[in-house]
């Protein structure tokens, strides 16, 4: 289950502000933005908001992609008829990126960085000087460090933040406006799931269905009991 909520969450603001800054950077500065963080922190939600805000081109990488598949995917997003050779395709992507001024968002970039496709990314950047946003998992910075040429073109690193209490409150309010969640409940949940938004959404739904069954319109930690959170761990065996 994803967390398809565009409530003003920390990560949403971080990414879209970073892209806005990069778009208006002075000439001569590099234009790669990297957002990285563990799964479930709301990177994709941030990506969706930023993509709509800047009319960005969005590609989601797959492990199986070759250089050609990668270029085809980008050109498809731009709805451009792909040329027959890869070098011309790089030109096409670069031309469209630099002329249109729209950023390119590449999600799940960790699949590409360990492979030869990463050089295509560098080529595209060099030829276009456009804004390229890489979104990926925790190990992306260390993989990027091995790619000297791409690494020094990063203008901003945006580590995805773990959810704060404010985030939880905003999410709870927008998802279930009719139920009031007490702060101690939300704080306990935040600690138990370690700020992972996806798990927060699962648990809020659990609380909500329970509260509905009990006909409550507000719930706190005492009323809920802190041992029934879903943390993703399998239940321990009982004697």
């Amino acid at each position: 289950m994803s967390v398809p909520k565009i409530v003003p969450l920390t990560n949403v603001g971080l990414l879209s502000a970073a892209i806005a800054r990069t778009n208006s950077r002075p000439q001569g500065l590099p234009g790669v933005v990297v957002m990285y963080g563990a799964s479930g922190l709301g990177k994709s939600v941030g990506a969706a908001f930023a993509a709509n805000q800047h009319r960005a081109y969005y590609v989601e990488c797959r492990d199986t992609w070759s250089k050609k598949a990668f270029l085809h995917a980008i050109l498809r997003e731009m709805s451009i008829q792909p040329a027959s050779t890869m070098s011309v395709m790089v030109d096409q992507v670069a031309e469209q990126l630099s002329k249109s001024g729209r950023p390119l968002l590449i999600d799940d970039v960790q699949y590409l960085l360990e492979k030869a496709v990463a050089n295509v990314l560098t080529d595209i950047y060099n030829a276009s000087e456009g804004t390229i946003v890489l979104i990926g998992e925790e190990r992306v910075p260390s993989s990027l460090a091995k790619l000297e040429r791409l690494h020094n073109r990063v203008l901003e690193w945006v580590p995805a933040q773990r959810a704060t209490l404010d985030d939880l409150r905003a999410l709870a309010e927008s998802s279930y406006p009719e139920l009031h969640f007490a702060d101690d409940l939300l704080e306990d949940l935040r600690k138990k799931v370690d700020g992972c938004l996806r798990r927060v959404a699962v648990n809020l739904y659990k609380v909500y269905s329970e509260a509905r069954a009990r006909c409550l319109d507000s719930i706190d930690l005492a009323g809920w009991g802190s041992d029934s959170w879903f943390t993703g761990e399998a239940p321990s065996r009982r004697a």
Partner: protein
Amino acid sequence: MPRIRADLVMVGGKSPRQYIWEAIRAVNAGPKALTTYTVARKSNQDDQAVRAYFRDMEKAGIVSKVRNIDRRDSEWTLLKDEGVEAPRVNHHGKRTTHAGGVENIWRALRILGEFTAAEAAATASVNGVSISEFGAQVYLSGLAKAGYVTRRGGTAGFKTRFRLVPSRYTGPKHPIYQRDFDQVYDPNLDQVVWRKADQEVTQ
């Protein structure tokens, strides 16, 4: 040997202005002068439409007039090449975001995979574009009819959740739900993918 020029050509169905814009870029790259007449012939569009588009783009500062050749023909210079996508300007020279709401919904649907109409409207309403929850609901149920999304929920207390069928992501241009004919047109494929009339015939 000179390198082959990578002319950018859009795939799928194109609007008349898209044809005109592609012709403008092609003529601009070639040796011929950029005139209303050459563009109209190259794009196979009406002279009047080409003239109107040039006039609108001149107001928007995308092209500027070099000279008048005769009463209906002028020579132009392209000031700002914006890539493959035709600039969308109205007759005041203002940028338009017509149907920006559904475009954003389609983009967000592909990134997030699943949402309710309320969430879709919230995601799509950024940067001067706005769409209501009702508008999103109408659009998404149109997509559901054509089989682009599946629907789940829709009972009391649980709003309908729409989920994109991944194999039906045909491309970046949003499918258009034409309510007055009750049909869905997909510009990526350039075809009408669903028609209510067809369903009635088979029944």
